[in-house]
């Protein structure tokens, strides 16, 4: 399980790629979209054929943190022809936006069925150690800062309380005909993350953003992990 971290350390990196982050999370039993690295267009096509269309493609580069901002993301890619064209477009946009992007390739993942977008995260507090965050995704987290925190380790009661603590909670219960999110699935993901944070003290920061919270469960479709810089 620490292989991914060891490899990053060996390469003197503190940022894990999305593929690496998801591998680590999947090994811990946390529900993520299966995501594979492709270093060529042919490889991307092969992965997509196995994973099943439609897929999402995202540029993989240590130099790029915000992939959407540099045109490094293509969503809902329907078939192999579309995939080949999408890979070309990503290449053109990223090389135009970033000086020497040093891209390793693209990540390929199946498009997850959408649900309410939530964010789950880990950070390290100087005094209390690992801390978990929960909020609604998008503007709710970025503009309104409508989030709840708890200190690790979480008890089941803590997970239930933090989900209900945010102002936007009614949106998860099925507001205006939207399907209600599976709250138990969110709560168990929080409890899994609490264990994950305890087991991996080298994780300085983690965002699962977004996690799609659907009536039938919760799945993280993007993941970002930053390692501590001092070990």
């Amino acid at each position: 399980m620490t292989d991914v971290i060891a490899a990053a350390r060996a390469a003197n990196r503190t940022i894990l790629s999305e593929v690496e982050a998801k591998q680590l999370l999947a090994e811990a039993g946390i529900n993520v979209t299966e995501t594979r690295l492709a270093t060529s267009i042919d490889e991307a096509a092969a992965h997509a054929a196995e994973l099943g269309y439609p897929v999402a493609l995202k540029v993989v580069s240590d130099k790029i943190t915000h992939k959407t901002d540099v045109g490094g993301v293509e969503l809902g890619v329907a078939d192999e022809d579309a995939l080949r064209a999408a890979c070309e477009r990503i290449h053109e946009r990223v090389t135009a936006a970033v000086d020497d992007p040093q891209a390793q390739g693209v990540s390929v993942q199946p498009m997850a069925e959408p649900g309410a977008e939530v964010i789950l995260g880990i950070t390290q507090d100087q005094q209390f150690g690992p801390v978990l965050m929960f909020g609604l995704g998008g503007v709710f987290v970025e503009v309104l800062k409508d989030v709840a925190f708890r200190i690790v380790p979480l008890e089941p009661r803590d997970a239930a309380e933090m989900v209900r603590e945010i102002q936007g909670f009614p949106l998860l219960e099925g507001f205006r005909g939207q399907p209600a999110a599976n709250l138990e699935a969110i709560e168990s993901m929080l409890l899994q993350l609490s264990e994950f944070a305890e087991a991996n003290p080298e994780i300085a920061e983690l965002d699962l953003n977004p996690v799609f919270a659907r009536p039938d469960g919760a799945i993280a479709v993007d993941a970002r992990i930053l390692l501590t810089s001092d070990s």
Partner: protein
Amino acid sequence: MAVTRERLTRALAPKVVAVIGDKKASGYNWLRSMKEFDGPVYSVQVDENEIPGIEELGIPNYKSLTDIPDQVDFAVCAVPRQVAPFIVQGCVEANVGGVTLFTSGFAETGEDIGVELQNKIFEIADPSGLALIGPNCMGLHVPGLGVRFNRDQPAGVQGNIGFVSQSGTHGMNFSLTGAAHGLYCSTLVSFGNGIILEAADYLEYLADDPQTEVIGMYIEGARDGQRLFKTLREVAAKKPVIIWKGGQTEGGGRAIRSHTASLASDQAIWEAMIKQVGAVAVHNLDEMIDVVKATLLTKRTQGNRLGLIAMTGGQSVVLTDAFEKAGWKVPTLSDESYAQLSEFFNIIGGSYRNPLDAAGTIGQDPKHLDTIFDILNADENIDAVGMELSATFMARRWQDKPEEFDRLIGSLKKFMAESGKPFLAALHPSHVEEAALTARMRLQEEGIATFPSFERAANALQKASRLAAV
């Protein structure tokens, strides 16, 4: 070596006290503060110029701790910082239970010499198991035993509030202002730099202390946050805990890459921690006093429906606003209640909606207040009762006719004794502030939770109701 509970108890509930290094320049503050101590007090002072003044106070002075013909449980040390390590060494040799180091000028200065002296003290105290409080603190206040660090602090009264403070000033202010509200400490510790004993140690002691019913804490930061978190979780399950977090810790200045880290402010984390352990957060001294008061003096309820009694229509409105803003509901009463109220209520200039605008009705016959209380007690729509006591109308009258005030207090206490529902009162300051203050003091002495504004009353009851009944 960990400080044993036996050693900590000797320090915090001492039978014999010594004051080391008190002097005229400080007005013999430490010795004078111990005047009411319930046991022998000794002085240790080597300065020949200071000794006569100490002896004039009637306190026996010795040149060294080991000369004292008694086993000292608790020592106060007010010597210069360079001398402090020697005094701590003396405490170890004399098997003193615990010592509080008022002395400052250690790690808090950021100076090398301060850090060095603090480390030296730690190295002397730690292996011995000495219960060392501080340094850089005001130390211990136990009113029941007459242990004080300020002469205005109460003595000879057994309190029921445990208070742990990282700051001497806030600890002192809580004990002084609290006493003016009829609130007394069981044990108060100001622990300053907390190099041997820290907040968690005192919390564990107070959790087990039979005199302590509620615990308040002022804290700025924790050396071992996980230990504080886990201790608070255990302690708050046993007794109500109210936490005032002061200041903001610097984030450390590292580059932040995630939303999670960027949103995790010091304040957000502390507020979350306080909620998570089952304590409540307050943000200033007034709020600390209010919530402690409501926790001690009002019963707990699971519900949030309030029956309110006001003296005028205008106050009915803002009283309702204040409580609803704090999360309470002010519902309609049951049909049965309305039927009963309609039989005697004076509706000319009054109303028996909720809030009950009841001045005229009570003025007509004070027995009506008891009837109103009986009705609210029986009403299933009501979980708690609040009442406006109008200083503007009544304070001067209560002075002139104390029997009327006695009667009112009798009615409030009768309701409090008979009903399982929480009761609280608000008595605003008014144009006759002295009379209002006298009335408020009396209400407090009678154990009636009284607040100086509707907003403070509403907030206090709301926060107290979040604390588990113990």
